[in-house]
């Protein structure tokens, strides 16, 4: 298994996240509606708004998962925040980076993952909007475009929240 790497700009990235004052806050309808929309659009059981903290990923909004956080080291989102575009693993068992990941070999038995990075400022990805399924699936250009548009909606809501709107 390949542990989630640490971005070169990690101190600045974490500051961007902490400046949001959002970690460990209650659910908010403005985010939940996007998560639920994504679940219905993609027909996946689990959708998360994941924020990647120093040692954990914490879920501001979630459907299909009981846990409110998991270790960053084994997270898929820790990989996704290093990308500019959606990070997609169509079948984890076919990918040596993830085939023996505890989230694959044990609950929630991830077989499919697609995470779009939440880039608030250039290079400052604080987390992801991600889709998870226990079944492998194809993810085409239309899927990527829809996920990206929903990601953009999440980023806008994060900015609105920070601005007090």
């Amino acid at each position, binding site marked *: 298994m390949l542990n989630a790497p640490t971005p070169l700009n990690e101190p600045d990235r974490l500051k961007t996240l902490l400046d949001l004052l959002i970690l460990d806050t209650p659910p908010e309808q403005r985010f939940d509606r996007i998560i639920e929309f994504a679940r*219905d659009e993609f027909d996946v059981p689990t959708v998360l708004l994941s924020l990647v903290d120093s040692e954990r990923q914490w879920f501001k909004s979630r459907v299909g998962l009981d846990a409110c956080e998991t270790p960053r080291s084994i997270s898929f989102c820790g990989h996704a925040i290093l990308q500019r575009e959606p990070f997609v693993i169509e079948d984890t068992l076919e990918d040596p980076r993830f085939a023996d990941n505890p989230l694959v070999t044990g609950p929630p038995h991830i077989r499919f993952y697609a995470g779009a990075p939440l880039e608030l400022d250039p290079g400052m990805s604080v987390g992801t909007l991600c889709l998870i399924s226990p079944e492998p699936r194809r993810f085409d250009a239309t899927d990527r475009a829809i996920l990206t548009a929903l990601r953009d909606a999440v980023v806008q809501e994060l900015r609105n929240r920070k601005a007090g709107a």
Partner: protein
Amino acid sequence: MPGSAPAKRLLLVEPHSLFRSTLANVARQLARVDVQETSSLDAARVALETQRFDGLMLNIGDDLAGLDTLQLLRDGSTINPKNLPTALLAEGVDQTSIDRIREMSPKRLLLMPFKVRTALEVISELMEPGPMEAGATFLRA
């Protein structure tokens, strides 16, 4: 891009903001359609009276008020062709409403719930050149 045809123009009238913005953004990116979006029937009427479009996607609403806007178009009361290719979005319709909808010759009727992907496919059909089909095709995604 030199020599390329101008993007087709679509008027998207849809009150649900997340669905509307997602569909508009993806249509612009993938279908290369110039989408003008609004949540308001009043704004839609003004747009149809002042701007030319190649297609219309219109949520007719629970009270079917959107059909009045479509009637203006079909009556020739706007600057757009009476037979502008149109897709209608609806929560649900009874038989009386279906009869009224058929009279207005939409190219498609999408009954909710449906996916953004389905609406994108319908937009692509609306933007295709060629004569408008007679009658309505009913889709439930």
